[in-house]
């Protein structure tokens, strides 16, 4: 069959509809997030204000004291910024931690499909000619590492606990219980991230999808958990985008309040 059919030309299509809108939106959306997150990670400042810690900088492993908008030293897991850190790299706590959630999204089944279309044009749209490749390998060769998505998931679940702890900590400013707009921002962040992370295809497999028989002895309550994860999985694309946008907005909010560009409405009167 393959021998007698003509090869497809890149972007060859008969479609007259607006098939290109979705890949263009993905390109712009993911592109904008990558540019902003990289810029924010390079700054190394204005990531902490009131009692709010930017999710791009959490968990704080080291803190460089004296930097504008940096967290107090007690907030860091290992104390003051290390002297061994290469001088050609900015002293930004985000560098130490941002790669892990980044890896979770990079290997996510939804994002893979989306960026293969938007960034690699394999294919750019359904029934639209893909970039010609001499020997297309799919995810069997260079992209074989995508199979380890579940390990990125394990780390992402740890981050959920950390970001939830940050949200809880944001209710307390200098020993006083209260709340502000920033508290709400940081509280919604792990909620959206949770809906996204717990709807992961790999998690769905691990909590029950791998079993052929839910009712068999030893399977216990897996069907109930599997169904809940499956519900979130059905909306994985939606939660992927909502959580991505919200985590970016959370950093932007903390940054703008810390820089004094906007004021945080809160019960502490600061």
């Amino acid at each position, binding site marked *: 069959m393959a021998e007698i059919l003509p090869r497809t030309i890149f972007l060859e299509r008969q479609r007259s509809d607006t098939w290109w809108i979705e890949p263009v939106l993905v390109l712009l959306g993911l592109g904008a997030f990558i540019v902003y997150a990289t810029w924010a990670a390079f700054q190394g400042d204005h990531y902490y204000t009131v009692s709010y810690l930017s999710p791009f900088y959490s968990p704080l492993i080291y803190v460089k004291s004296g930097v504008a908008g940096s967290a107090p030293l007690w907030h860091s897991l290992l104390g003051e910024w290390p002297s061994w850190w290469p001088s050609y790299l900015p002293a930004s706590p985000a560098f130490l931690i941002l790669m892990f959630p980044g890896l979770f999204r990079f290997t996510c089944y939804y994002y893979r499909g989306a960026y293969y279309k938007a960034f690699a044009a394999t294919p750019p749209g359904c*029934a639209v000619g893909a970039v010609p490749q001499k020997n297309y390998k799919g995810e069997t060769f260079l992209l074989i590492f995508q199979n380890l998505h579940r390990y990125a998931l394990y780390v992402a679940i740890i981050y959920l606990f950390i970001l939830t702890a940050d949200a809880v900590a944001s209710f307390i400013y200098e020993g006083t219980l209260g709340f502000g707009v920033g508290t709400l921002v940081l509280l919604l962040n792990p909620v959206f991230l949770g809906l996204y992370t717990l709807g992961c*295809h790999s998690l769905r497999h691990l909590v029950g999808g791998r079993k052929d028989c839910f009712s068999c002895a030893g399977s216990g309550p897996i069907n109930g958990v599997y169904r809940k994860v499956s519900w979130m999985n059905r909306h994985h694309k939606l939660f992927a985008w909502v959580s991505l946008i919200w985590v970016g907005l959370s950093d932007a909010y903390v940054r703008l309040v810390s820089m004094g560009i906007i004021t945080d409405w809160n019960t502490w009167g600061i």
Partner: protein
Amino acid sequence: MAKLRNFKIWRGDSDSGDLVNYQTEIDEGMVVLDAIHRIQVESAQDMAVRWNCKAGKCGSCSIEINGVPKLACMTRMNDYGEEETISCRPMKSFPVLKDLVTDVSWNYRQNQRIEPFKPRPREQDGNHRMMQEDVDRVQEFRKCIECYLCQNTCHVLRDHQKNDEFVGPRFMIRLASLEMHPLDTADRIPKIREEYGSGMCNITKCCTVVCPEHIEITDNGIIPLKERVVDRYYDPILWLKRKLFGKKDQSK
């Protein structure tokens, strides 16, 4: 009131062909297949189009309408603008026999390659028993009408022509329906990776988009199979577990 509409229908055979202009009147409620039949009667009696049930259940009338793979019998004319010309082409991924009819026999050969259902022994009373909750998943896959729109749209077959390395989405969900079946005992995971090509799919979900039965081919069929392949071949912890405890199949 009937309206005159413009059509471009691909006419030809495996050697050559081109789009031919037609006009016909469209009544309220007509689908594209109705229009093709009316054109057949009025001006192209020798035009070939495969069809059968006209109810979206036989999977015969798969063509590309304005470049989008669809069932002609389930595509309503009022989905398109009144001035819009409707183009009808045969499925691109399969050799043309005549006009809108393609040779889809490659798919039948893929089906034959798949190890069939191999149930566990019957219970003492001679029956097989399984719970509804255990077959919910595989029942979704049984809705497939074998229209092959997913096979036609899959870029691995359509653009890269990797027919020797990937069986395509339709047969990935057939494999999923067998692998996830609570009574089945066969182990197809090695072949799913090595012969049927689960790694060739890059989950761009075009198969799911065009499925007229709305089967979640990628999320419920292909990705779960990919994860089972990961269990067997890529997960280092499970590899160690197998070495220590010897259990091969995680699904039982």
